[in-house]
């Protein structure tokens, strides 16, 4: 019994950590650079599908299926999503701030359409199955399998966290924050905002793709339904709750929000009669939306938030 509980906890934590990876990607875009991405689900989907197409065994009813190692799939997923992010960014970052938001919204709609309709490549509404899972040789022992996957995902999150912390402290990260706080001053010092923003957006998109690939390999099956707009909302809620600009906050927020989400979903399915469950689930989403607005109104820095930035010190000097 307790072993079951541990392997369930391992499954839960591994899932939460895949969201933490998405959250870290969003943090580079929004938290550190101030770029608003409404198409997170699209970049995650691109990563997941690219990786699945590269690594699944050859199937007669589908193009692709190159049977490559999982690591290549992860890399390919990150690369594909990074490319897509670069394209969207190059198109819109030089324009008004909210054109990027509108364009990413369009990407989310279009990617959803593509995975549904390009059936020969993506399997259409049925998705892609038989995606190789890491440590599949351990599959007979659920506990060892769960813990090994948890360790792999924790390693990925830790590695990304250290790399991103290093990036944030590096001259590159300082330029990003300088641009976010005072674009004109940064420009006067010879930094080109558009180029730095585009780099940050591309890296963030690639990390989201990596998250999608890792999640796809962990579950072993992907379908268009996994990448609906609600995924974007969840990741946003995670980052806002944890505190934008703070990588540790992004990880904690992901685990916390995923926990609340999973628990309330379990409560809904246990307590609400089946015919009312769709409505209860809708109410759950109302809560996320209202919560997002409340945090923006009441506690814009999130639970942890970024340590005092240049702007906030300057503002606090004002009378």
């Amino acid at each position, binding site marked *: 019994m307790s072993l079951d509980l541990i392997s369930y906890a391992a499954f839960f934590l591994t899932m939460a950590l895949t969201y933490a990876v998405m959250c870290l990607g969003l943090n580079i875009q929004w938290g550190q650079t101030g770029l608003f991405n409404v198409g997170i689900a699209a970049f995650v989907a691109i990563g997941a599908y690219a990786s699945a197409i590269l690594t699944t065994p050859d199937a007669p009813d589908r193009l692709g299926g190159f049977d490559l190692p999982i690591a290549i799939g992860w890399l390919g997923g990150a690369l594909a999503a990074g490319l897509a992010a670069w394209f969207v960014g190059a198109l819109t970052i030089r*324009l008004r701030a909210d054109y990027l938001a509108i364009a990413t919204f369009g990407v989310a709609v279009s990617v959803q359409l593509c995975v549904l309709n390009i059936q020969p490549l993506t399997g259409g509404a049925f998705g892609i199955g038989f995606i190789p899972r890491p440590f599949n040789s351990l599959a007979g022992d659920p506990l060892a399998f769960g813990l090994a996957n948890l360790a792999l995902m924790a390693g990925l999150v830790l590695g990304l966290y250290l790399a991103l912390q290093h990036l944030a402290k590096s001259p590159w990260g300082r330029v990003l924050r300088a641009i976010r706080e005072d674009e004109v001053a940064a420009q006067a010092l010879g930094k080109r905002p558009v180029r730095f923003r585009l780099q940050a957006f591309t890296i963030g998109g690639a990390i989201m793709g990596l998250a999608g690939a890792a999640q796809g390999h962990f579950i072993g099956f992907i379908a268009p339904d996994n990448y609906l707009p609600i995924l974007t909302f969840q990741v946003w809620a995670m980052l806002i709750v944890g505190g934008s600009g703070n990588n540790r906050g992004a990880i904690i927020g992901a685990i916390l929000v995923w926990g609340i989400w999973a628990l309330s979903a379990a409560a809904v399915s246990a307590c609400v009669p089946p015919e009312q469950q769709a*409505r209860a689930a809708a109410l759950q989403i109302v809560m996320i*939306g209202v919560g997002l607005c409340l945090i923006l109104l009441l506690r814009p820095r999130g639970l942890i938030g970024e340590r005092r930035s240049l702007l906030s010190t300057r503002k606090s000097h004002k009378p």
Partner: protein
Amino acid sequence: MNPQFIMDGLVAGAMIGLGAIGVTLTYSILRFANFAHGEFLSWGAYLALAVSGALGFLATGLTRPIAPFSFGWSLPLALVIAIFLTGLLALVLDAVLFARLRSRGSAVIILVMASFGASLALRSLLEFLFTSKPAYYTKALQIAVRLGGGLRATPDQLLSLGVTVVVVVVIHLLLTRTEIGRSMRAVSENPALAGIAGIDVRRVIRFVWFIGAGLACIAGTMTGLLVQIRPYLGHDLLLPLFSAAILGGIGSVPGAMIAGLIVGLSEAGAVQLVGAEWRSAVSFVILVLVLLLRPRGLFGRPA
């Protein structure tokens, strides 16, 4: 190619145009892309449904279809009431959310994000209240009439086109010929200067919310009448609305209407040429092309 796609495109484009006028007005006055605008369409459609249901309950005679159309007097009456209710919804949303963020001097992108949260809450609230099952204003069936040239349209479709023309002309006169319209244009040019010149900027902002939401209610109700009413009605139209607003040039009412027709016609054309499943991608392609070739849109001022 079947010429019927022109009729379908015009009808869809009229609705996109009406919604895009609201987007472009709020964008040019409040200076942010309002992701909750699609929800005004859905709420408008459902409010009209609820009010017309209530009217029909009070006086059954009101639901009897008016000669060639599929609906009774309860729907036009309900539409008038729903326009006010949707406007009220927008004003309340502004008061509890956007006005507070504005007064704090929040960045544009925070407002965009708040509108994103609001749209999620409003849409799921509709799903909670009315469930995701499609609803209809009337169960009556309509026969399309021949218009010549291989075109057919139902009386409801023709009426919708006529209403759109009237509404657009009224809005255009309102903006160009009246005092409030001139104030609006002044605020969109420069809010600070307009304030100094004695224009009540907050009144203009309230007016813009009301007009935008009212137009959204009309567009939503017509979409509900011609297709069906769903909680995702507005969300699915949001990308076409943004594409049309940007293609027309932010702040331009005639631009938004013309661009709405262009988007509607391209969608209908794509359905014929490529297939119905790619319909929603059309507005994204248009959006990408505009941003690449002419980011300020057809009638917009250079940024």
